[in-house]
């Protein structure tokens, strides 16, 4: 299970999955041409997450713009996390969004609903 660190680009989010610091964070825009290259490593990371060794998973999402295909990949990642939660993993998901961005709030609600995982919604003040 390798760490994943990806620097933010105009169309790709910053990704920080660090086992040691226990930071699992995806933040920024997500509308890449090929979502698979961005999100497959995260799916693999989650699939290989050792629930026996790591009982807790704290995840933070802070999107700005996100396209429909990215949403599909994020849904797949969250559903994999939900499977681990059923095996005893304690999951905490923070969903950060701009205070006036109801679309992102709605997306968080959808993802929480399909995975049956509670999200903590954090409103951010608009810059």
């Amino acid at each position: 299970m390798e760490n994943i660190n990806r620097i933010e680009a105009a169309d790709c989010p910053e990704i920080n999955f660090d086992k040691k610091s226990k930071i699992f964070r995806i933040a920024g825009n997500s509308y890449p041409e090929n979502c698979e290259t961005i999100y497959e490593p995260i799916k693999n990371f989650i699939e290989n997450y050792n629930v026996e060794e790591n009982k807790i998973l704290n995840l933070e999402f802070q999107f700005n713009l996100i396209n429909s295909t990215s949403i599909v990949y994020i849904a797949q990642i969250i559903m994999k996390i939900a499977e681990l939660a059923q095996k005893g993993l304690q999951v905490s998901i923070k969903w950060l969004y701009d205070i006036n961005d109801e679309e992102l709030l709605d997306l968080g609600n959808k993802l929480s609903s399909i995975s049956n995982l509670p999200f903590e919604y954090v409103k951010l003040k608009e810059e």
Partner: protein
Amino acid sequence: MSLAEEHIKCENQILADYHAIKESLKKDDVIICQHIGTFNQHILISIISLLDHTLVQNGEYLSIKKRLSYLVIECIHNIIFHSNITSDKNQLAYLLIIKNELGYTIYASNAMETKNIVMLEAKINDLLAIKKSALSNLFKKKIQTPEINENGYAGLGLLTIMDKSGKDFNYKIAKVSQTFALFHLEININYKNYQ
């Protein structure tokens, strides 16, 4: 007619349509962005950046800014993934974003193969038959059982466009030659829905 001649006919038609839209604009309409020809991810990034800058300068609501950006991303990805490519590797497509008295209008058009017309029309008609309020739930259902193609693309662009535009859009599929047709989309983002 050879394939090369069909390409030229298609190119001429898309140019004529593009200029017809520009000529039909009202005096106070403002072109926010226009691009004709080949689209790729770099052009998408530039258009989103330009759009963001312009809308911030215009003091637009965040909700309008976001909605417009989401729609433009889906329109351009639709062009990148589905538009027909000419023999010299160029795309036949355009995108125009207009600010008008009611809000904003996105015009997008791309060449497609006539053999795909029936499939596209069936897909659009299926989505049009769904109530506006049910589109969001359909999206929720689709993201749980996606069909991702070999390019890593989930194919939810049209559904997203319908959902995010609140079905405030017009479309037209015009056959240009035996092999090619043009798929036009006109999407409206009306101020009255955001205040």
